[in-house]
C-alpha cells in the first residue's frame, strides 16, 4: 500500500477538503467575526474562544478563519489568472517566434528582474490597493516563470517529428495545439499553477501586513498580524501566534500538494 500514487491521492483529497472547509467556514463566519463585544476583551485562549479574543472582544478563531478564507480565494483567483496568462504568452512565444518571441521574452526578463514584493507593492498601490490591487499585483508578478517553462516546452514540442507530420498533413495551428500540445503541456502547467497558490497567499499576506494591500476593516491575515504587533509587547501572544501558524499550515498544505504532484507527473520520478 505504500506507493506514492496512493499516498499522493490521499494527501490531495485531504488537503482539498481541509482547504474547502476553511474557505467555507471563513466565508460563513466573516460577518460574525467583526462583532465587537467589550465584555470579553483580551481573553487568552480557552474553551470558549480557542484562539482567544482581541482588545475589542472579537473572536480570533473567527477572524483567522475569515482571513484564511479570503487568502485562499485570492490565491485561487491569482493562480488561475496568472496560469492562463503564462500559457497564452508562453505558447505565443514558441509558435509565432520572431519579434513576438523577442518582445514577450524581454517583458519576462524585465518582470523577473524586479523583486516580487516591490513589484506587487507598486502595482497594488497603482490600482488603488484593496482586493483587486493585491490580486492584480500578484498575477502580474507571478506569470513569468511558468510562461518561460511553457515557452521552452512548446519550442521543443514544435520541432518534434509528430507535430511536423501533423502540420504537413494539413492540421492548422489551433488543431495542433488542441490535439498535440495541450495534452503534453498539461502536467507541467497543473503543477505550476498549484505551486503558485502558496506564493500568492504569502505575498497577499505580506503586502497587507506592510499596509499596501487589503484595507484594515477586511478580515485578512496580513491585517491581523500587523495589528497584533502592537500588543505583543504587552504579553498578548495569542493574537499573532495562532493566525500566523494557520497561515503557515495552509501554505505548507498547498506547497506539499504541488510538490507531490510534481514528483508524480515528472517522468524521471514518476515510477519511484
Amino acid at each position, binding site marked *: 500500500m505504500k506507493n506514492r500514487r496512493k499516498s499522493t491521492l490521499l494527501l490531495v483529497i485531504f488537503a482539498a477538503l481541509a482547504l474547502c472547509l476553511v474557505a467555507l467556514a471563513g466565508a460563513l463566519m466573516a460577518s460574525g467575526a467583526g462583532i465587537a463585544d467589550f465584555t470579553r476583551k483580551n481573553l487568552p485562549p480557552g474553551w470558549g474562544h480557542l484562539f482567544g479574543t482581541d482588545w475589542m472582544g472579537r473572536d480570533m478563531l473567527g477572524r483567522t478563519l475569515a482571513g484564511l478564507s479570503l487568502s485562499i480565494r485570492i490565491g485561487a483567483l491569482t493562480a488561475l489568472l496568472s496560469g492562463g496568462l503564462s500559457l497564452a504568452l508562453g505558447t505565443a512565444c514558441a509558435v509565432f517566434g520572431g519579434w513576438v518571441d523577442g518582445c514577450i521574452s524581454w517583458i519576462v526578463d524585465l518582470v523577473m528582474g524586479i523583486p516580487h514584493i516591490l513589484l506587487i507593492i507598486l502595482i497594488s498601490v497603482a490600482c488603488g490597493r484593496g482586493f483587486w490591487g493585491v490580486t492584480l499585483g500578484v498575477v502580474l508578478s507571478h506569470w513569468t516563470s511558468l510562461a518561460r517553462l511553457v515557452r521552452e516546452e512548446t519550442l521543443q514540442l514544435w520541432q518534434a*517529428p509528430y507535430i*511536423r*507530420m501533423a502540420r*504537413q*498533413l*494539413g492540421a492548422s495551428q489551433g488543431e495542433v495545439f488542441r490535439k498535440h500540445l495541450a495534452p503534453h503541456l498539461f502536467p507541467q502547467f497543473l503543477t505550476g499553477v498549484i505551486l503558485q497558490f502558496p506564493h500568492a497567499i504569502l505575498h497577499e499576506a505580506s503586502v497587507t501586513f506592510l499596509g499596501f494591500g487589503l484595507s484594515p476593516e477586511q478580515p485578512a491575515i496580513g491585517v491581523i498580524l500587523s495589528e497584533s504587533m502592537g500588543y505583543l509587547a504587552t504579553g498578548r501572544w495569542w493574537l499573532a501566534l495562532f493566525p500566523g501558524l494557520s497561515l503557515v499550515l495552509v501554505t505548507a498544505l498547498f506547497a506539499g500538494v504541488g510538490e507531490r504532484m510534481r514528483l508524480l507527473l515528472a517522468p524521471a520520478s514518476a515510477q519511484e
Partner: protein
Amino acid sequence: MILEAKDLTFRYPCRRAAPVLKGVSLVLRTGERLGLSAPSGRGKTTLCKLLAGWEEPGRGQVMLDGGPLPRRGLCPVQLLWQHPEEAVDPLLKLRATLYEAGQPDPGVLEGLGVRESWLERYPSELSGGELQRICVARAMRPGVRFLLCDEISAMLDLVTQARMWRFLLGQAEQREMGLLIVSHDRALLERLCTRILDWEEVEGLGETRKVRQ
C-alpha cells in the same frame, strides 16, 4: 508535377561548423521512382526535411511545379520519417493518429496489413514495423503527389519489407506519385527504382555544371 531542389545549402542554427548540405540539386517527377544512396552522415535526412518543407534552406529553393511549397493545408509532398516511433504522438491512440488528415481508404489498411485492433492502442504498445505501416497508411491521402521515403523499411523483417514495397510501388503507379527512396542498401534501390543517384551526383551538381559551362 515536378519537385525540384535547386542548389540547396543548409546549416543547423546551433552549429557554427560547415553546412550540412552544400549546393544540392535534384529533380523528381511524378510517376518516377528515384533512389538516393549515400553513406550515413551526409545529410540525406536533412535533404528530405528541406524537400518536405520542414526546414527552410539557407540558400537555394525547393520548387513544386516552379512555385514554392504550399504553407497551409495538406502538403502534396509527404515525408515518411525514419523513426516511426517519433512520428506518432505518444499520448494519442493510433486511431486518432491514423485519422489525422481524414478517414483512410480501407484498401490501404488491407494492403499494408494494418489490423483494426492496433488502432485502439497507444504507440508504446506496438512495434516499430507496425507503427511504420500506420505512418505509411496515414500519408496515403488523395492530394499527395510525392512521397519521400527516408530509410522507411530498415526496421521491418524481410517479408513485411517486401509486402510494404509491393504496396507502395502499386500505389505510386495507381496514383501517379513520385517516390524518392533514400537508403544505403544499394541492392534494395536497384530492385525498386527507375533511376538511382549517388550522393556525389547530387551534391555540388550546380557547381560542376557551372564549371562545365
